């Protein structure tokens, strides 16, 4: 992954008594954080073709206690240092730190289950050390439509409203019914599709939100009981269908099913009552697909969990400050918008 930061980052692993274990290079995946930054800029009314093509700088915020090279947070901001700025806490790097610590265990530098302290460190890169970025002309095609949020909020039903700052996400009930119907016809294997719609701005409130207007079934995707392969042909067909619809929609996310009733058929009722699979989860593969294809900060992945106990439940996952997290969504009543 390209890393355009003018700083090189690493992790200092130390024992709890402060003695050093090792300093390890870290190559963070900055792109989800950059996308969050771009959305922040777009929310401020900057032309989306500019906002979504920005290449923010990443700078360390030195630890107040220990000073450089120890880092307490990272700040993303535009090259001209104008507002806004996005601060990333250490939690952004937690997954990378965990992977690196596993490698230390494998190498015998850290005991299995041993507690340690991991601190982000940074140093300025030498000129010749900086990766090539910016020589390309980047284009962003993320149109933003004006739309009234109040009109949608009046008729929408909130699901898993977590009171966070995620862009509101509206999905028509009929669209979910279309997806459920596909799940019902493919109960022995995973199935899915691509969600299309619009990124919208409420002119009165200046707030961005997503309005899903349709789903394109991934008919060329290959599913079995535990996986769903989105092939190159899947994307070609999706693009062709999007063009055929000719409504100015963009891809705003994706959905797929988890046939939990197959995975859990040998589990006890008590076990299933406590199991996260019944409530909807995003697997590591799901996260990787979301990162690879849907890195925009407004994109959402829906999981329909077919537990065999009533209609499949819907769980939504999306980006929150550069990390994938479960999030809320709103459903719209039948007829609120055209989802044909």
């Amino acid at each position: 992954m390209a890393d355009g930061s003018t700083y090189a980052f690493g992790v200092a692993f130390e024992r709890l008594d402060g003695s050093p274990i090792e300093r390890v290079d870290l190559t963070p995946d900055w792109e989800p954080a950059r996308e969050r930054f771009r959305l922040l800029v777009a929310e401020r009314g900057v032309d989306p073709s500019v906002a979504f093509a920005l290449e923010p700088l990443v700078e360390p915020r030195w630890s107040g206690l220990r000073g450089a090279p120890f880092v307490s947070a990272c700040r993303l901001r535009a090259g001209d240092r104008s507002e806004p700025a996005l601060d990333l806490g250490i939690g952004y790097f937690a997954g990378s730190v965990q992977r690196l610590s596993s490698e230390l265990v494998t190498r015998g530098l850290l005991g299995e289950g041993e507690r340690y302290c991991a601190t982000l460190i940074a140093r300025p890169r030498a000129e010749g050390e900086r990766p090539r970025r910016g020589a390309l002309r980047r284009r962003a095609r993320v149109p933003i439509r004006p739309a009234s949020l109040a009109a949608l909020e009046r008729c929408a039903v909130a699901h898993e409203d977590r009171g966070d700052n995620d862009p509101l996400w509206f999905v028509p009930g009929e669209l979910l019914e279309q997806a459920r119907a596909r799940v019902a016809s493919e109960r022995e294997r995973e199935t899915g599709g691509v969600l299309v719609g619009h990124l919208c701005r409420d002119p009165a409130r200046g707030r961005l939100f997503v309005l899903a207007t349709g789903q394109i079934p991934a008919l060329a995707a290959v599913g079995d009981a535990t996986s769903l392969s989105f092939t190159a042909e899947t994307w070609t067909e999706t693009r062709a269908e999007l063009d055929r619809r000719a409504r100015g929609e963009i891809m705003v996310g994706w959905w797929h099913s988890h046939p939990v009733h197959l995975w859990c058929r040998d589990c006890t009722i008590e076990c299933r009552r406590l199991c996260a699979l019944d409530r909807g989860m995003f697997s590591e593969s799901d996260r990787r697909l979301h990162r690879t294809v849907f890195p925009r900060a407004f994109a959402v992945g829906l999981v329909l969990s077919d537990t065999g106990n009533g209609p499949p439940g819907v769980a939504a996952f999306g980006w929150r400050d550069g990390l994938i997290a479960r999030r809320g969504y709103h459903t719209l009543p039948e007829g609120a918008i055209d989802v044909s």
Partner: protein
Amino acid sequence: MSQFSEGPIALLEVSDVTGQRAVDIEEVDGDATVGELVDRLLADLELTRDDADGRPITYRARLEREGRHLHAAERVADALRTGDRLVLQPNIDAGGPADRR
């Protein structure tokens, strides 16, 4: 022998599957293979290289002008013209928890 051009190909537009992010490539080595070109473009488009299990993700390059996927072994100068548009399409899996596989 190329039916189109020899030497570098100028100005390609390459996008991801959503079409929301694209880059203009100003010059490509005509002697490179499509596979080598795709490898370079992954970094330019900030696309991930590995799946959740650490295996390389396979990307195919779709040439819009001809409506076909290019073969990795094709020579750039034989397959592409200046002004062409490519879409990089991953073969990628979603799915259930790894310990169920």
